[in-house]
C-alpha cells in the first residue's frame, strides 16, 4: 500500500508499473486521475491552491485504503494527492487499484475516491477573475460516499 501527499507531479504509468511489479496474480488494474479544470461554477480558474492537514491527511488516506482492502478482494492500491499551487491541466489526484478481477478493482477505486472526497482533509482555493475563493463542498460528494455505507459484505 502506498499513500503519498506531495507537491510534485506523478507519472501514472510509472505508478502502475511499480504496483504491478513482481505480482503475476494481478489480472486487473483500475485507475482514476483527477485534474484541474479551467472552469468552475461559471468562472475561469487560473490557479488552485491545495491546503491539507499534515499528519491527519496521511492517516485518513491510509484508513480509506485499509477499508477498501477489507471490503473488496483486491491485492493492493496506490493513492497520491498533490498539494500546493496547481493550474488547469495539472493532475491533482491518482488512485490505482490492482486485483485479480476487474469488478472489485473498479469498485474499490471508486470507493477510495468517494471516501477521499469526503474524509481526507484537503481544501481547495481557486483564483478567478473575481478574486480568490475557497471551494465549497458538494452535497453530491456526500451522497456518493453514502452509497457505500451498509454494503460491507460485497467483496
Amino acid at each position, binding site marked *: 500500500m502506498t499513500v503519498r501527499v506531495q507537491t510534485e507531479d506523478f507519472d501514472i504509468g510509472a505508478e502502475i508499473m511499480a504496483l504491478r511489479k513482481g505480482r503475476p496474480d494481478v489480472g486487473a488494474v483500475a485507475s482514476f486521475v483527477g485534474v484541474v479544470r479551467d472552469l468552475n461554477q461559471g468562472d475561469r480558474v487560473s490557479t488552485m491552491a491545495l491546503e491539507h492537514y499534515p499528519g491527519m491527511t496521511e492517516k485518513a488516506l491510509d484508513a480509506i485504503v485499509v477499508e477498501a482492502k477489507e471490503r473488496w478482494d483486491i491485492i493492493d492500491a496506490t493513492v497520491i494527492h498533490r498539494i500546493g499551487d496547481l493550474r488547469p491541466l495539472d493532475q491533482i489526484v491518482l488512485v490505482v487499484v490492482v486485483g485479480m478481477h476487474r469488478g472489485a478493482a473498479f469498485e474499490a477505486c471508486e470507493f477510495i475516491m468517494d471516501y477521499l472526497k469526503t474524509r*481526507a482533509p484537503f481544501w481547495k482555493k481557486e483564483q478567478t477573475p473575481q478574486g480568490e475563493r475557497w471551494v465549497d463542498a458538494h452535497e453530491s460528494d456526500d451522497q456518493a460516499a453514502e452509497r457505500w455505507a451498509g454494503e460491507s459484505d460485497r467483496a
Partner: protein
Amino acid sequence: MVKLLFFARLREDLGTAGEDIHLPEHINTVDALRHYLMTRGEVWRDVLAPTKALRVSVNQEMAKPETAVREGDEVAFFPPVTGG
C-alpha cells in the same frame, strides 16, 4: 494543555493557524469546546456558529459533538473537505 488547529477558511477568518490552550475542567467535549471558543468574541461566534458547516477532528480522527476532549489532545476545526 490542548492543541488547537484551524484550517482553510477558518484559519483565515480567525486569523490564526492554532494555539495551545488551557481548558477549564468542564470543557471536555468537542461541542463544549466549540461553545467555549465562541465566547471569545464576534468573529469566533460567527465562524464557529452552529449554523456553519464545520468539521472537527480529535487526535487526527474525525470527531462528533459528543467526542471527549482531554488534556494533551490535538483538536482541529475546519470546513467540509474539498480534495480530490
